[in-house]
């Protein structure tokens, strides 16, 4: 048996182990890489959630670095992250726009008065069409949009303190603007 041949099973094992190890480093397989990072926030023209419902468009969103948070009252994780969004609004002075996704506006208003309202304003995406344009496939999802209206970052799932500290805050520092905080 040549030396090469003796090494072959070891090499095969090594390659397989390497591939499987890479599998461990992948995050949740349900997390899709976002196709929209680096692209402009989509156009929209939707009713707002305010007491007299108005309308909001993409133009109301650009001009400031903001978080856009897709949420719904039927989404338990949205409630779980609500406190962190309030903290971000309070401590970092970050502007947060809500997209109330496939929800009932009356329920949503009641939910906000019960749990607090960290949003500058909410748009009502009852049908989920803005959700499709945003590549949303579950709530909550959170986007960081720069002053020019370009999506810089997308988080699928809860925004917690770790996500803020390790992912969003460093990006904000890079963008050179963190609201007034």
């Amino acid at each position, binding site marked *: 048996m040549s030396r090469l041949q003796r090494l072959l099973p070891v090499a095969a094992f090594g390659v397989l182990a390497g591939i499987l190890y890479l599998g461990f480093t992948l995050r949740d397989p349900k997390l899709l890489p976002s196709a929209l990072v680096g692209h402009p926030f989509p156009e929209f023209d939707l009713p707002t959630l305010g007491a007299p419902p108005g309308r909001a468009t993409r133009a109301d969103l650009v001009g400031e670095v903001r978080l856009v948070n897709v949420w719904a009252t039927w989404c338990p994780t949205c409630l779980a992250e609500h406190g962190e969004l309030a903290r971000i609004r309070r401590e970092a002075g970050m502007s947060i726009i809500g997209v109330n996704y496939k929800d009932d506006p009356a329920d949503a208003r009641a939910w906000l008065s019960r749990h607090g309202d960290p949003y500058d304003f909410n748009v009502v995406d009852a049908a*989920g*069409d803005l959700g499709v344009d945003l590549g949303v*496939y*579950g709530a909550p999802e959170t986007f960081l949009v720069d002053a020019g209206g370009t999506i810089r970052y997308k988080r699928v799932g809860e925004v917690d303190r770790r996500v803020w500290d390790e992912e969003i805050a460093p990006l904000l520092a890079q963008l050179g603007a963190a609201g007034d905080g």
Partner: protein
Amino acid sequence: MGSASGGTAGGTTSALLGAVAFSCAVATFGASPIDGFDFPDAAAAERYQALLSEFRCPKCLNESLASSGAPIAVDLRRTVRRLMAAGAADDEIRAHLRARYGDFVLYDPPLRPGTWLLWFSPLALAGVAVAVLARAGFRRRGTALTGAEHERVVRLLDRNP
């Protein structure tokens, strides 16, 4: 009642046949148009089905848009119908969904540097397999017995008749 002259037995048979025909029709209907949507013609409905089977539901990993009942799949089906109604070509519809949900939504991902591993690793593995087999084949052909070895084999075999 066409089978009235045939008596009770005939009536039962035709009722049975009718039931079978009805359930077949229901099964066929149930298999094609989802969300209860009517298309102007059969070609459009067929095109819609073909397109849907090309897309993967973003939420459910291993279900196509055609078969998934997830709310997001309903939304995406509505989007495909809207684009079709607006006269978009198949490629434009694919590009529209891909721009929003990435390569993940396509069951047939495009060939680009990021997907080289996906596309070429089976070829590479097949290449390795061929190389290993070829080596083994060459080696076997090269192991002819020398004269002394041949005599020894004969001796060993003769010892135990």
